[in-house]
């Protein structure tokens, strides 16, 4: 389909390999990958459809546009934290203190901005710097003293929680002014319709643009191409799906800017992980640390960067949570925030064993977590049941991850 057939492409000289071409080939390759245990985003996509169907049949309000808009608002803060978790999980490490970190960030906003009266950007900057600093501390404990991140971040969880209580003092919570841009951002700011539709078309257009560029360059370098039909089919499906989502949500309040910010961060992280040298090093260190070291990668620097990104994003999540709740309270970042963030990354398909994952897993995972939490709230179920069900979903996700890993090993796909 793509080869003209007069000269074998550089990567098509081995006759033993079946080459999948065109749309049929792409589907066949996909089925093969799933069978061998390379599940990717499939379980989470299936799970999301399943959850939506169940909750919708129990209470049709679940799929009402405005309920979904609220869901997106709620997803952004924990989603941000989860995005950072993807980074540390990628290295086979963990950060258990992200919940407390977000709590401290939210307290810092309240204290520096409202109580001390500094400008808002200063408060946000202070919160983010605090996050970066904490990440640096964890990384140094790991690289200098060999302290497992599991322990150092568990200690950090407690220390940060104490700091949050200290910062808020006896009052316990600080209300943020309702008229301020920060609270508006977290509660009512919606993208205008034209911007939403434009952003829905953009990914498909970018896909075609970069895909064509890549095809041209591959053809020039005498490499094979998967074919134009696959590229166009993917782009069309994506664009139609996104337009449908935007149209449906604009029946309600529209798309929150806050969710847009989260998606933008996911896109940036995805680029960093898949298209930069840093991202390659992250995968390498997670897959085989010694091999990465011997290839000249500065493993410690990569670890520092991962922990710093994680804690900074956790702090940002705290800022977003404060803006969503219009307050900095002692409850911010406690309870299930920690586990939800970690569960979201794992449910989305980032492996706990390191070396496998994607920024998108934070987005899809947090949608699953938030859908469950939202659906159960609509059913008027108590938080006790909510915790149990979320716990079960996390367990299932980890089992799927482990089984897929075993299957990959037996199919030679690590």
């Amino acid at each position, binding site marked *: 389909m793509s080869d003209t057939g007069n000269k074998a492409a*550089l*990567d098509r000289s*081995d006759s*033993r*390999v079946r080459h999948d071409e065109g749309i049929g080939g792409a589907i066949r390759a996909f089925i093969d990958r799933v069978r061998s245990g390379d599940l990717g985003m499939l379980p989470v996509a299936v799970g999301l459809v399943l959850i939506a169907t169940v909750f919708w049949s129990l209470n049709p309000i679940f799929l009402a546009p405005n309920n979904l808009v609220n869901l997106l608002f709620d997803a952004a803060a924990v989603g941000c934290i989860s995005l950072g978790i993807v980074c540390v999980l990628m290295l086979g490490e963990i950060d258990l203190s992200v919940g407390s970190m977000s709590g401290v960030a939210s307290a810092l906003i309240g204290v520096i901005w409202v109580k001390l009266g500094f400008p808002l950007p200063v408060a946000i900057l202070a919160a983010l710097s605090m996050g970066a600093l904490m990440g640096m501390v964890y990384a140094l404990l790991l690289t200098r003293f060999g302290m497992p991140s599991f322990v150092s971040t568990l200690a950090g969880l407690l220390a940060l929680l104490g700091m949050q209580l200290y910062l808020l003092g006896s009052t316990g919570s600080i209300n943020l002014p309702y008229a301020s841009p920060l609270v508006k951002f977290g509660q009512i700011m919606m993208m205008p319709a034209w911007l939403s539709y434009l952003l829905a078309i953009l990914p498909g257009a970018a896909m075609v643009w970069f895909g064509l560029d*890549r095809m041209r*360059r*591959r053809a020039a*370098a*005498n*490499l094979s191409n998967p074919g134009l039909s696959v590229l166009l089919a993917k782009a069309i499906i994506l664009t139609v799906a996104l337009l449908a989502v935007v149209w449906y949500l604009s029946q309600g309040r529209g798309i929150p800017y806050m969710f847009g910010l989260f998606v933008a961060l996911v896109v940036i992280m995805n680029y960093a992980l898949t*298209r*930069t*040298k*840093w991202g*390659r*090093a992250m*995968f*390498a260190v*997670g*897959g*085989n640390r*010694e*091999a*990465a*070291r*011997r*290839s*000249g*990668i*500065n493993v410690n620097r990569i670890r520092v960067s991962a922990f710093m990104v994680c804690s900074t994003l956790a702090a940002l999540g705290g800022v977003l949570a404060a803006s969503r709740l219009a307050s900095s309270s002692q409850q911010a970042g406690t309870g299930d925030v920690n586990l939800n963030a970690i569960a979201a990354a794992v449910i989305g398909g980032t492996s706990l064993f390191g*070396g*496998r994952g994607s920024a998108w897993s934070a987005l899809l995972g947090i949608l699953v977590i938030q859908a469950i939490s939202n659906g159960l709230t609509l059913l008027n179920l108590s938080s006790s049941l909510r915790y149990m069900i979320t716990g079960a979903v996390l367990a299932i996700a980890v089992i799927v991850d482990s089984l897929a890993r075993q299957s*990959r*090993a037996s*199919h*030679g*796909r*690590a």
Partner: protein
Amino acid sequence: MTDPREGAAQPILKLRGVSKQFGAVQALKDIELDVHAGEVVALVGDNGAGKSTLVKVLAGVHQPTDGAIEFMGQPVTLDSPGKALELGIATVFQDLALCENLDVVANLFLGHELGPWALDEVQMEVRAWTLLQELAARIPSVREPVASLSGGQRQTVAIARSLLLDPKVIMLDEPTAALGVAQTAEVLNLIERVRDRGHGVILISHNMEDVRAVADRIVVLRLGQNNGVFTAETSNAELVAAITGATENAVSRRRARKLEEVEQ
């Protein structure tokens, strides 16, 4: 800086009195080694003789406890693998040191990707195919994770990676252990090609046939110390004697017994 020994050409790599201690174990003691440009030096010795430790010292993985290393006439400290690679010392490790979760292209270019802020995948894939074809490698796809490759294919990928940066010295630790007959011949051809390009090669192998086929000098290590330098013309018995440390050894006893059996 000039070499006092009868004005011989400057060695690329010169080791003097290199020692390495792991706790109570003296893995290497006062190792002397010269590698000249366009020369294949074979490093042989029994298990535990310190060959792999020496390779790791030269690759910057382990730091020597004592001794001096000179590279191109300059004293150097190889304190990290990156430093060794930067100088032009490339290594194919015995365990290959590949990342199984990454594909072949990613492994070849690991740590030295083209386009740090926007990876040039097309260019890297082209380089990967060219390099692999130079080695006459049979890799079905460079976009599959290394986990799906066979032992021999992984070995080829590891060798191809060491050649990527056009190193001055390349060290191969048991490069033919997992290879078939034809691929072994290809690797030996490759070693000669690398030598003819004016690079130094350090080859570690248990296979005396391979060693004899390509080595200009054979350096024997025994129990972490130098135990003689030989040439390819040295008899097998002599080499084995140097490796085991005695003319009366397991190999000679076995041969004698076989001879007796034939005579009876």
